[in-house]
């Protein structure tokens, strides 16, 4: 009798091993990202072959680069490279903050926008578009004001920040921050932001309306080196800081009091992660508009492959998010040649069906 019991048990655990080991997935993604980025450099209205791209890069790295500034080089270094890099950093920030928020809310369907930052940012951007355009004319609004950033970006960042503070305050009482209240407060603030946005759109003229809706679709086409540097800095801060809180996030999946019994200062961890997420998503949204689905789908898929251990989940999600956004942005440049689609449309178009398939699969398992 015991032997049959043992063999039955043995069979059962081999059948539920995860598909990929975490270090392997990290290595695969780390190799895939440069390849995808290189490929993305060659894609666009003007198609540049790998050989030409490689040649142009080699030339510019050599000493006498000033002499040869061909059209190819201009396209590659002034337009495509910043755009690809911006896509990488925005993708990594959105996906890693998504993983963090899903852990913090103990909900695999949470999204970085849950803390109100995206809704607030879109109100901030619309406000600037409607009022500043009315006051100063569209040229001032779009041209550089702060470190090469537009007023719209600044408005978006401020709006996102204010909304996050509101949500956090609403959910924090004497006994700490309740994630359930925070979820509900995020929904409420999101609805309020939606209403304000509609109100602003109602008063906007045709030109402003187009600007607002384009901004909300998420767009990487206005990438510049100053944007890349800011985004790179934010991405670096987040990805260097998150590993220190990975174990705390793992413990939080057990529940908040369990995490406390494992020696984790839950309130401090929560506050730190919310501030970092607000910073990351706020800056991403300010620089690239609303790029949906990356923060929701990527951590979810990575978790299915390697499990919920945040020590691996966060870096793998960051890499996968970067890859997805680079691919989506490459497609955005070529699907409706000679025009371009906003990147946010592509991430939603790629992400949504994928997510539906996942949900159906999950339903079958339950």
């Amino acid at each position, binding site marked *: 009798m015991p032997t049959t019991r*043992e063999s039955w*048990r*043995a069979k*059962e*655990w*081999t059948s*539920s*091993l995860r598909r990929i080991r975490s270090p392997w997935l990290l290595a695969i993604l780390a190799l895939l990202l440069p390849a995808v980025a290189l490929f993305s450099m060659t894609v666009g209205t003007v198609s540049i072959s790998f050989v030409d791209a490689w040649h142009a890069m080699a030339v510019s790295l050599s000493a006498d680069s000033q002499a040869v500034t061909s059209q190819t080089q201009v396209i590659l270094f002034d337009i495509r490279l910043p755009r690809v890099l911006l896509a990488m950093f925005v993708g990594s920030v959105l996906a890693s903050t998504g993983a963090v928020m899903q852990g913090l809310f*103990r909900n*695999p369907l949470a999204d970085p926008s849950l803390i109100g930052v995206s809704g607030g940012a879109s109100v901030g951007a619309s406000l600037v578009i409607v009022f500043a355009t009315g006051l100063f004319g569209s040229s001032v609004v779009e041209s550089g004001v702060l470190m090469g950033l537009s007023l719209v970006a600044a408005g978006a960042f401020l709006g996102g920040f204010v909304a996050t503070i509101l949500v956090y305050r609403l959910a924090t009482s004497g006994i700490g921050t309740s994630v359930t209240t925070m979820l509900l407060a995020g929904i409420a603030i999101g609805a309020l932001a939606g209403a304000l946005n509609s109100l602003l759109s109602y008063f906007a003229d045709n030109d402003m309306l187009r600007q607002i809706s384009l901004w909300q679709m998420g767009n990487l086409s206005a990438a510049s080196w100053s944007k890349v540097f800011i985004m790179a800095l934010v991405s670096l801060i987040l990805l260097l800081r998150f590993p220190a809180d990975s*174990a705390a996030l*793992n*413990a939080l*999946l*057990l*529940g908040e*009091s*369990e995490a*406390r*019994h*494992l*020696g*984790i*200062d839950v309130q401090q961890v929560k506050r730190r992660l919310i501030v970092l997420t607000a910073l990351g998503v706020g800056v991403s949204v300010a620089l690239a508009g609303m790029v949906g689905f990356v923060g929701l789908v990527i951590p979810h898929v990575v*978790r299915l492959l390697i*499990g*919920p*251990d945040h020590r691996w989940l966060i870096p793998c999600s960051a890499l996968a998010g970067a890859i997805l956004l680079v691919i989506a942005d490459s497609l955005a440049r070529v699907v409706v040649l000679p025009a371009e689609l906003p990147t946010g449309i592509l991430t939603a178009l790629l992400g949504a069906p994928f997510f539906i398939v996942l949900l159906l699969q999950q339903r079958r398992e339950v």
Partner: protein
Amino acid sequence: MTLAAHNISLHLSGFDLLRNVSMQVQPGAVTAIVGPNGAGKSSLLRVLTGEMAPTAGEVIFNQRPLNDWPVQLKAQMLAVLPQHSLLNFPFTANEVVGLGRIPHQTGTNRDAEIIADALKLVDAQYLQRRFYTQMSGGEKQRVQLARVLAQIWLPCEHGEQFLVLDEPTSAFDLAHQQLTLDIVRQLASRGVGVVMVVHDLNLAARCADNLVVFNGGEVAAQGSPEQVLTEQLIDQVFGVKVTIARHPATNKPLIIS
């Protein structure tokens, strides 16, 4: 060096959940808390573990007020098994038990040994790589038990260790109930102070050195099971007429209803 509640009262939204409760958990002994539903057993555990601050009174843990201990040091000495677990992410059993090693810096290899030993102790080594979300209720509870065991697996240099269990046997079959009691006794003989809420009075009588009977937020009686468990007390606290005999093998009180 004890985990002790001194004159604890707890008022919450107009209700007196605990009134003037004093009790001690001794290292190397098993303390069982029994009482009818809503008597304040779980509230007392919350106060004893620092999850809730008492309205009045004080919890002293290893000669210091409980909240004076740095959280990580406290976690090295005090492990808590809740009644229900919220975990709904697909960790493997190995990973769940590994969470119990978070307060310690013993290194990956030593931790892996401890995780394997803890799972073996609760008869769950076959679950090592299975997903927590796909386990049965009893399997989940065994894995969680292994997690808190892993947390206090090695003695701590800063003070005595304590294990708090809230209805640890509620999801277990007879064999695993027995196993849990054996583990609890084993821990006590190693010097760990165990305090647990149980519903089965016979189980409490068999396992506990010290029995605390709760009723209406107050301690109705405490002492050794032999002293405490009388027909009169059970009628008074639970409203049930019982006969108390002696267990033929262990000679512990045996409640027959």
